[in-house]
């Protein structure tokens, strides 16, 4: 089993950020998976000693910057998600891949809901329910990456 180093963590996050920064437009933008959040959640569940709440917070700050919104909104949402990911990380080893995916979906929805609440507080309009499509496409990407044909090693789980 390969040893995970910080280089893997930050390398994959950089890649996720690049995917996030692609000039998505129109319908593709509505369906764009949240690659950065996926990378964060993955490492939080797999290697919590390398990627902690602070890492998640900082990634969220980069998202704030990339979207051009008010600083701290995505950061808070990511930190909260990171906390929930880490605090149930041990228990997740008792789940199988599908139950894990369900938990990840919950984390993704939690992030988006936090963002919506913060944005509504800041005076933005509700963007419509299609906002949650990001979570749907994200979980599909998660499954595509974890399941056999591609086969990236999942976080510790029951077989």
């Amino acid at each position, binding site marked *: *089993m390969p*040893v*995970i*180093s*910080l280089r893997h963590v930050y390398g994959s996050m950089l890649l996720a*950020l*690049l*995917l*996030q*920064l*692609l*000039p*998505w*437009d*129109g319908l593709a*933008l*509505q369906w764009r998976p949240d690659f950065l959040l996926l990378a964060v959640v993955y490492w939080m569940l*797999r*290697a919590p*000693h*390398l990627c*902690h*709440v*602070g890492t998640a*917070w900082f990634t*969220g*700050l*980069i998202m704030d*910057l*990339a*979207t*051009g*919104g*008010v*600083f*701290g*909104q995505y*950061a*808070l949402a990511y*930190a*909260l998600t*990171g*906390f929930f990911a*880490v*605090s149930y990380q*041990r228990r997740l080893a008792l789940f199988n891949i599908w139950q894990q995916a369900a938990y990840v979906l919950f984390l993704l929805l939690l992030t988006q809901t936090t963002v919506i609440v*913060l*944005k509504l507080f*800041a005076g*933005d*309009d509700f*963007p419509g329910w299609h*906002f949650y499509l990001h979570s749907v496409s994200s979980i599909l990407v998660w499954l595509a990456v974890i399941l056999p044909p591609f086969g990236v090693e999942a976080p*510790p789980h029951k077989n």
Partner: protein
Amino acid sequence: MPRALEPQQTPSFFIHGPSPFARLVFFSALSLALIVTDSRLQYLHDFRQGFMALLHPLQMIANAPFDLYRAGAEYLTAHNTLVETNRELVKQALQNGVRLQRLNELEAENEHLRSLLGASQVIVQPARLAEILHMGRDPFSQKMVVNLGERHNIRPGQAVVDGDGVIGQVTRVYPLSSEVTLITDKELSIPIQVERNGLRAIAFGAGMDNMLDLPYLPVNVDIQIGDRLITSGIDGIYPVGLAVAEVTDIERNPDSPFARITCRPIAGVKNHRQVLLINIPEIEPASGNIIGRQPDTASNPSASVQAASATGVSR
């Protein structure tokens, strides 16, 4: 980091560093402080500028495959498509040329009439061509990012137009790029004039794709479906007479004092990759129309009154 080399399966019973909950509390407090600082006190401007400069190369890398694809597609365009486009463009140029000849004459005439009236001259506003880097990533706002920034002397507030009409306004300038808020954004309002009858109003973005609102107009207002709205120019930012939107729907509700008027922007943000950023004209301070001024500053009151009454064209 020595901890990085620990085998993965060994659970670490001794938590290194603060607990997740302590971290959560700390970072949540930090985020809340950031949210307040950024939205209420403009202290984080330089911070954002610096970070954007760091993010810019990454953005360029992310855009590279698409630019390459576009360049390749352009290179491989079929011969007959090129000929066809060329023919179309020549035709268009000819038509525009005829109109331009008349425009030159009209401009000269207008200048002459204005000098007769004593109104100030229309200022020519130079513009710069910018390319769209990407559309806004935030579903909560209607924005896009273009490839000119502070280094290219772009200033916040500049109007952004394309060949058909107004697209929006530069709201934030980064070192090498700038953020344009589209006219459909909820935060942006634009002074307009109905082309048919010269009625002035202010159009607000509806916050949704391809929609503008004309609020606070009485139920009996003289606006019809299909009316074209153009910039009135009284703001001193947008040049006069640029197309903004077309009225698509009017709802006259008896229990509301105002009509609900919805419009569709004429400029197609999605259609082009290039846009024009129009420079903000230097506005001379108005003189003469402030009551109680000394007579020497109000030396030519008639001229400035004329200027003010000429539906804002003077600015």
